[in-house]
């Protein structure tokens, strides 16, 4: 409790409050713009971490993370273009509401639902994270190795629509992570001394998220503008409140555990929440035509799961979303040892972050309810100006890592890779997680095998490791069974809803 109060003390200093406000403003702005997500923003802002204190930077990043979610729902509702994969459901039901003239109510239930879910989930974080960290800190390398394998497997196979594409991305990521001489021998350096230190993760992240996206937009620059639904200030009637509060709570209950699992992700809980609300609703006939429950539940689930993903990030050092992955990079950039010891070594930082989540959430509600029409105006920015700015900051960011012109060449190469991944529908998330976790995975494996003096059976010598492998086996089995039952799997709902996908991974 003392730690939490200390955390609030850190979060509420004028300077950090300013960074939190900056973060939520920036986060909402990038969330509103389809194609530019919090992950890209964090990647572009990584150079900021060189000159700003760790607590301020992390607090700002957390604000961007939460803000992106709020902004994404605005775009989903008004434009029917989900800014991120977890807003797909919001787009379905919310846009129907908006078309029926209930845009203000849809925005309000999304914003207030996000606040409720975010607050509850943040409180859960305060309770769960330290306990998980206490358990994890006792684990040895074999268990840690197993958990990482699970995270990689889940992010690749469970979350994406296509397993094959997921694994292509994962192995690309692991290959990029291998580059360098960290193990003493040169791997994939092609005799190029500049590659000896490996490819900096900042360059990879900026290239994939910013350059890849910019090239994609440049290739599809001129197209018919989308029709936006004009909206006033969001508000809700008493009836809307009555129909919203239960879906908010149920959505939170779905979202947080899914986010907190190392196999997290916000898509599944939003789909589950939508299905549940459809079954429980007193107005099932409204679903598909703009039911407020269908916005309230998934939107709450989305936010709760976003908070939940901070559990594996802070307690285990395992990111399960792209944004969390970049936050991990930032923490490592400050020289912090991420993993279970982070909470004990730097309680001020972690609790400052946890407290600031609450501050960010409150700021977002205050900012977003009255400012929704203003945010919608951002969509009118001509994209050439926007992406010129993004390219500038991307190049600046990549160059400032090592002040090597070579990094700019790498940036372009990986950016082109990102463009083609987008072109062929290969998800980016497994790649970025692969780049980050690959070297750590190897490190844990080496440690485990050093302790056991080369005996491979040490990998399943700990109970936790065995349990994790069983879980992976069960997941594989489930995949095989569903694969056999449905030889030609139906197109996922997400792909069917909008042919021009603008989804970004968080």
């Amino acid at each position, binding site marked *: 409790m003392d730690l939490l109060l200390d955390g609030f003390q850190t979060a509420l200093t004028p300077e950090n409050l300013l960074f939190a406000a900056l973060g939520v403003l920036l986060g909402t702005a990038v969330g509103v713009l*389809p194609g530019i997500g919090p992950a890209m923003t964090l990647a572009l802002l990584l150079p900021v971490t060189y000159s700003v204190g760790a607590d301020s930077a992390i607090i700002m990043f957390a604000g961007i993370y939460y803000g992106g979610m709020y902004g994404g729902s605005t775009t989903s509702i008004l434009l029917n*273009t989900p800014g991120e994969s977890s807003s797909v459901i919001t787009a379905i039901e919310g846009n129907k509401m908006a078309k029926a003239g209930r845009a203000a109510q849809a925005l309000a239930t999304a914003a207030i639902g996000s606040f409720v879910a975010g607050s509850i989930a943040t409180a859960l974080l305060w309770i769960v994270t330290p306990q998980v960290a206490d358990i994890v800190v006792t684990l040895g390398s074999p268990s840690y190795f197993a958990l990482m394998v699970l995270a990689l497997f889940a992010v690749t196979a469970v979350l994406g629509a296509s397993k094959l594409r997921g694994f292509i991305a994962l192995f690309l990521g692991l290959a990029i992570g291998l580059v360098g001489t960290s193990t003493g021998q040169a791997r994939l350096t092609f005799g190029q001394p500049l590659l000896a230190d490996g490819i900096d993760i900042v360059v990879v992240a900026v290239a994939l998220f910013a350059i890849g996206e910019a090239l994609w937009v440049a290739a599809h620059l*001129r197209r018919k*503008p989308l*029709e*936006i639904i004009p909206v006033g200030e969001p508000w809700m009637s008493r009836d809307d409140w009555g129909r919203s509060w239960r879906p908010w709570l149920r959505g939170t209950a779905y979202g947080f555990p899914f986010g907190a699992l190392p196999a997290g992700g916000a898509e599944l809980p939003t789909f589950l929440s939508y299905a549940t609300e459809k079954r429980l609703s007193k107005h099932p006939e409204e679903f598909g035509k703009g039911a407020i429950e269908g916005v309230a539940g998934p939107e709450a689930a989305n936010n709760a799961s976003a908070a939940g993903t901070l559990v594996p990030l802070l307690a285990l050092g395992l990111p399960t979303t792209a944004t969390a992955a970049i936050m991990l990079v930032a923490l490592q950039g400050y020289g912090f040892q991420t993993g279970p010891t982070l909470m004990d070594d730097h309680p001020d930082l972690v609790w400052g972050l946890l407290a600031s989540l609450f501050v960010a959430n409150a700021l977002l509600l205050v900012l977003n309810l009255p400012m929704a029409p203003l945010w919608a105006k951002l*969509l*009118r920015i*001509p994209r050439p100006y926007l992406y010129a700015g993004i390219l500038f900051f991307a190049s600046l960011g990549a160059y400032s890592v090592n002040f090597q012109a070579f990094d700019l060449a790498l940036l372009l190469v990986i950016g082109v890779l990102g463009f083609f991944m987008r072109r062929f529908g290969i998800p980016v998330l497994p790649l970025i997680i692969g780049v980050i976790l690959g070297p750590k995975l190897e490190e844990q494996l080496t440690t485990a095998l050093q302790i056991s003096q080369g005996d491979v059976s040490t990998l399943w010598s700990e109970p936790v490791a065995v349990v994790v492998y069983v879980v992976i086996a069960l997941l594989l089995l489930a995949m095989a069974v569903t694969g056999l039952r449905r030889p030609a799997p139906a197109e996922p709902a997400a792909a069917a809803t909008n042919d021009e996908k603008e989804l970004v991974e968080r």
Partner: protein
Amino acid sequence: MNRPAITPTCIVAAYSADRYGEAAVEHAAGLARRDRARLVVVNATLGSSLVDTRFAPDADIAALRDRLAADGLEVVVRHDVVSDVADAVVAAAAEENAELIVVGIRHRTPVGKLLLGSVAQRIILEARCPVLAVKPD
């Protein structure tokens, strides 16, 4: 009212989905009715931003076309994504052999003109035929 020096057989109206564009279309429609001229309504966008409120939705364009046609006018609507809006209007006038272009004009601060330019000004300067500049009431 004095008759203008020309009696156009085809009039181009530069339409943006706001009150300036509506003023232009209304004025052009009035002239077309009087002179029994063809009316070409041009509503174009660069398509470079996600949302362009001056680019009318398809449903609104259809409604506009029906309303003008019901008025007894011979009307063509060009509703396109183009690389330059002013060029599109001038080109439409050249292709349709229009004798008059009607544009809606607005106040622009010097800074606004510097940053955004003025489609109306470019149409006025670049058109090969007379241009009528109108203001909303």
